[in-house]
């Protein structure tokens, strides 16, 4: 699709006819493959192992086709945008169209980068435990989900998009209910379904409003930025931002996320966290930021504000979670916030007409989209491995896993360092770039609002990053270090290679994407050409291994140097310790005279306690200490400690809304009396009324 003022239509048209490469055939092939894989999976449902291999290996194959198509699109010189029909029903003239441009290609790459390792991981993951019985269901659902997300990213008109969007939602809900015996999971799926449809409703309203104004459903017309004007534009922005924001899990709309992501099987959680949320981001970038014309300043401010809120609250709530998958789910909210911070900075800069700063912001957010997919996917796979090995999701019951699962531990550590934005890993690259967007925005913008907004955004980002690091010190330390706290943790075994290889792959990607930011930014340069209002990048600044956002010297970063320095430091330390000849002396830890056991270990609750005290205003914690004694509380047999943080949004935002809806539903019950006569009465009343209308018209 070619949208907006950047589209010099004639030139691109010509380029399209010249280029022999057609992404459409690649996309069709991928979709056909997926349909075939789903069919084969369901056919082989009886044979669990065959079904696993067919379903997940087939999915990986289809993802490879998609990835190759997307990569070919990005590397093609001029033919970066392409559109056509994916499917045409001749009798009705109904068609599914695609319109793939740089942005689509980028998100397809993000999707495939994650879905291939996840598919391989799933081959091993679904072999064990209670999930094995649901292999066919999960594999078919997984394929449907990935296929739907692909279709979302390449959809060329509103109908195709909404179809794919709905398919995506339904497939995800189905996967959340994989273990439907547990009430929590059913409740999570229901919550997800309801909120998603609220969002879809907003999207349908938005797209149809655009379509009725422009007389077409094709994105090329709808999102040309010239359809809506004035306050209508703001209304549409709000509709779309809510609609996509629910899917992305932006803070006031996030309540489904910490419920649904942990409920799904871990490999599905990885996909949901890594890519499904990005479908929301894709929509926000495609429609809210670049589809409704030049963004107005207030939109950018809203995006930055909600992004900042998501980032800080996401990480704060993550700190208080002791269920490892819930913790990761809250971190997804945080990272969505970071992505939005970059995007919001870009939108504000665009509204000021500062294309070059906007470039940095948008590039940072898209870079973080990829990075978050990689490290969050890695962390969820690691969590899944640990959960499978120990049978629980509570990190308070882990401990000492590093000795038992060294490779999983190493990969998890790399993921944890990446999400904490430590150089030279990939999280650092994109967050540094986001900082640059804020710093440059601050320096270059003369407007007073920007002078206020950009530093605040940067500060929020800094706070978030530091808290994320604290949170992952907790997650890694409590889970993997020290002594095992339970028998389950003590008996944990390392996962089979088929589950480790995908994690190693993603860990390597974390490192690679961090070490070669220049290459990623070069690819992003091609992506951003397809978005209106952004200038073509200055190639010189992105050469080689480093990142430089401007001409000044202080903003030039070469992660490779960090890596080299780090390697040197470790090498020197190792050499020194080897030379000094002092061998490590093993001795028992001093336990203040007490006996040291797993029970005396530092717990996750204790670790996060200081932060709970600091952020008391946000958490509003309640705690209860009970002495359990037979005779008197002064001679306790045991002590029970109960601590809880206030679920602010659930209680104070959604609670009143829910009660209101229920009250309205209750009052509507009057007409749903269940009486046959009442219903017949409605019919006759309607007929008589229509006849009276005819009478008055005559």
């Amino acid at each position: 699709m070619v949208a907006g003022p950047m589209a010099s239509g004639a030139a691109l048209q010509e380029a399209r006819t010249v280029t022999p490469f057609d992404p459409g055939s690649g996309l069709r092939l991928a979709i056909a493959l997926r349909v075939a894989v789903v069919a084969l999976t369901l056919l082989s449902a009886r044979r669990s192992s065959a079904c696993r291999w067919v379903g997940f290996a087939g999915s990986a194959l289809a993802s490879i086709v998609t990835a190759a198509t997307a990569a070919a699109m990005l590397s093609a010189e001029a033919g970066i945008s392409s559109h056509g029909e994916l499917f045409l029903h001749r009798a009705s003239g109904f068609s599914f169209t695609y319109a793939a441009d740089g942005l689509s290609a980028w998100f397809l790459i993000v999707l495939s980068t994650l879905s291939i390792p996840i598919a391989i991981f799933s081959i091993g993951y679904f072999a064990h435990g209670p999930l094995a019985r649901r292999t066919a269901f999960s594999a078919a659902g997984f394929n449907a989900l990935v296929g739907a997300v692909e279709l979302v990213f390449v959809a060329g008109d509103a109908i195709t998009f909404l179809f794919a969007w709905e398919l995506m939602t339904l497939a995800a809900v189905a996967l959340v209910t994989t273990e439907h015996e547990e009430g929590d999971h059913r409740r999570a799926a229901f919550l997800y379904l309801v909120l998603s449809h609220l969002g879809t409703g907003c999207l349908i309203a938005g797209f149809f409003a655009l379509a009725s104004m422009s007389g077409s459903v094709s994105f090329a017309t709808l999102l040309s930025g010239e359809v809506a004007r004035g306050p209508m534009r703001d209304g549409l922005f709000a509709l779309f931002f809510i609609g996509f924001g629910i899917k992305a899990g932006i803070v006031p709309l996030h309540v489904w996320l910490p419920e649904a992501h942990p409920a799904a099987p871990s490999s599905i959680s990885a996909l949901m966290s890594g890519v499904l949320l990005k479908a929301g981001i894709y929509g926000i970038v495609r429609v809210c930021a670049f589809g409704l014309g030049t963004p107005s300043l207030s939109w950018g401010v809203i995006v930055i504000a909600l992004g900042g809120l998501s980032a800080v609250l996401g990480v704060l709530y993550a700190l208080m979670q002791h269920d490892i998958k819930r913790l990761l789910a809250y971190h997804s909210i945080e990272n969505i916030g970071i992505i939005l911070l970059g995007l919001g900075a870009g939108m504000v800069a665009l509204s000021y007409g500062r294309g070059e700063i906007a470039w940095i912001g948008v590039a940072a957010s898209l870079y973080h989209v990829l990075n978050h997919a990689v490290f969050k996917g890695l962390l969820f796979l690691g969590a899944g491995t640990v959960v499978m090995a120990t049978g629980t999701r509570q990190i308070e019951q882990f401990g000492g896993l590093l000795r038992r699962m060294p490779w999983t531990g190493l990969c998890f550590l790399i993921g944890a360092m990446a999400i904490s934005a430590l150089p030279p890993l990939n999280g650092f690259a994109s967050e540094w770039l986001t900082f640059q967007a804020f710093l440059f925005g601050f320096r270059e913008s003369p407007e007073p609002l920007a002078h206020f907004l950009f530093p605040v955004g940067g500060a929020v980002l800094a706070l978030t990053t530091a808290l994320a690091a604290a949170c992952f010190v907790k997650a890694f330390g409590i889970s993997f270090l020290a002594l095992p706290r339970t028998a389950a943790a003590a008996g944990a075994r390392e996962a089979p290679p088929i589950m480790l290889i995908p994690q190693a792959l993603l860990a390597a990607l974390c490192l690679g994407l961090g070490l070669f930011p220049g290459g990623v930014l070069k690819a992003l340069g091609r992506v951003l050409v397809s978005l209106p209002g952004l200038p073509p990048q200055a190639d010189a600044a992105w050469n080689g291994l480093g990142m430089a956002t401007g001409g000044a010297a202080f903003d030039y970063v070469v992660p490779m140097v960090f890596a080299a320095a780090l390697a040197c430091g470790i090498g020197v330390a190792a050499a020194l310790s080897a030379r000094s000849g002092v061998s490590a002396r093993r001795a028992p830890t001093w336990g203040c005279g007490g006996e040291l056991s797993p029970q005396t270990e530092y717990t996750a609750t204790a670790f996060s306690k200081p932060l709970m005290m600091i952020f008391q205003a946000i958490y509003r914690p309640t705690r209860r200490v009970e002495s359990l004694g037979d005779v008197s509380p002064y001679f306790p047999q045991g002590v029970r400690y109960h601590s809880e943080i206030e679920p602010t949004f659930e209680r104070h935002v959604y609670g009143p809304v829910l009660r209101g809806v229920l009250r309205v539903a209750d009052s509507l019950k009057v007409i749903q009396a269940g009486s046959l006569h009442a219903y017949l009465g409605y019919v006759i009343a309607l007929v008589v009324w229509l006849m009276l209308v005819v009478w008055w018209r005559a």
Partner: protein
Amino acid sequence: MTSHDLLILCAAGMLVSGYLIVGQKRLFTTIRLFALQSLLLGIVAATIAVTQSRHELFVTAGITIAMKSILIPWFLMRLIDRIGIHREIEPFLNVPVSLLVCLGLTVVGYRVSTGFPEAVGGARHHLIGVALSMLLIGMFLMVTRKKAITQILALLTVENAVFLVAVGVTPGMPLVVELGIAFDVIVAVLVLGIMVQRIVDRFDSMDVSRLSQLKG
């Protein structure tokens, strides 16, 4: 008496029988009134067949009389005998009020019938007016009657009204369609009859207002 007069007379007779059904409290009489109404419909069809030389309408007339004025009433009476229910109708509204409402519905039906382009000339106007009025009266009967049997009768009244328009005003339906409709009606009555029996089995009554107990 011309054929024109006969048509109007029969149509008026149908409307009157509709009113009598509204005012009637005994179940068997109601069924007989319905049989009479169907007979009049058959006469209308036969009259049109003679005057307009549309001989296929004789078949329609035959089917209507055989089925609706003989077979279905017989079946319904047998059904009542078999399930041995109380043979009085228990309406929600009392008779005078019902008759007044039906009067209003007839006014609406007649007034609306003047809007049809077919309704300019003589008999057809009355046929459409009667049909629309009967349609509304049939629906009204459905709303106000408690017994499932009376609701079947109401449905059949509505069906008669639709048939009256089809025979009297349109150039006529193909025979296949007519046969289909006749078959539909008989099947509908059979199915509804079975349902009535089930309802009686389940609730010891065929008061459909008790069905609201089923809701959760």
